[in-house]
């Protein structure tokens, strides 16, 4: 799992100076998680690849405006999120009714550490299947939580939602996933 201090080790300063090796390191580190996140939005391999590329191009162009190097990961995912929304707008595709379901109630998230989650080998396929069945806002929050271990505030910053809403989404998403996996075990 990514550790918090990793953000400080990322060669963001070098990347800002246009160092290709720094960019190679950043690309290697984030390309697959970004792809996985974007793919959950667009459900199309080539489109997801294109959006990953656009995200990195945008990041390379605007990395000079990034004030805190430690926020590079959340900033990158925010760009990716904007690209996905832009893609949706351009293709006139909008989320299905289930996807826009939003729980406004604020609940305490019992397990904020994504490392606490462990999935058995035989449940892996089911895990992915049920993850993809979650409404998009919940899935998006859960992906960000699982992939990069982002905090609630960071997820809120990436998705443009309130912290309370993110908390609620994560709670419901985890609850649903747990229930499904436990039912399967029985």
């Amino acid at each position, binding site marked *: *799992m990514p550790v918090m201090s990793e953000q400080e080790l990322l060669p963001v300063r070098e990347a*800002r100076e*246009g160092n*290709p090796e720094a*960019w*190679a390191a950043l*690309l*290697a580190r984030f*390309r*697959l*998680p970004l*792809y*996985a996140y974007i*793919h959950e939005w667009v459900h199309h*391999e080539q489109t*997801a*690849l294109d959006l*990953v*590329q656009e995200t*990195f*191009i945008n990041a*390379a*162009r*605007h*990395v*000079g*405006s990034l004030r805190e190097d430690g926020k590079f990961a959340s900033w990158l995912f925010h760009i990716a999120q*904007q690209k996905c929304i832009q893609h949706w707008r351009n293709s006139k595709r909008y989320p299905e009714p289930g996807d826009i379901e939003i729980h406004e109630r604020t609940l305490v998230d019992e397990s904020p550490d*994504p*490392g606490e*989650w*462990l*999935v*058995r*080998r035989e449940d*892996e396929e089911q*895990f*992915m299947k049920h*993850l993809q069945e979650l409404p998009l806002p919940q899935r998006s929050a859960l*992906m960000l939580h*699982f*992939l990069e271990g982002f905090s609630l505030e960071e997820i809120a910053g990436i998705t443009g939602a309130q912290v309370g809403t993110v908390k609620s989404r994560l709670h419901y998403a985890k609850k649903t996933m747990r229930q499904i996996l436990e039912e399967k075990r029985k």
Partner: protein
Amino acid sequence: MKTPRDIILQHHCAAEVGLQTLSAQQLAQLAAGKQSRVTPKAARSNSFFTNLWAEVFLPWRKVWLGLGAAWVVILVFNTVLREDSSRIALQSLSAPTPETLQLLTEQRRILAQLMETTEPQTPADIPRKPGPRSEAVTRRAIV
């Protein structure tokens, strides 16, 4: 046992080949210097307007267009109304109706009558107040 992150990344590992190609392309662009290098200050000002455009206008472009259309309608309406009111004013000035003329004549007549009844009095008609004797001589001399 695996973590959700491992499972998700493993699920998408088939895309790694495509992503490597993409990375190579991007790095080649960077190495060739095709990527525009922006100074932090320029990037900040550039990103300010880009962000302003992307966050203020683009998401609400229909609202902005609606507002623009509403303003155009208001301006057109305002211009038309102003033209109408000026035309009405001109019409009323150029052609006084017989009723207006009659009313005006009547008012003039009443005014003339009032003027006649309240004509100012001549100094001779004003009753004299008794004053000091010393001044009476001078007054008589002046009269």
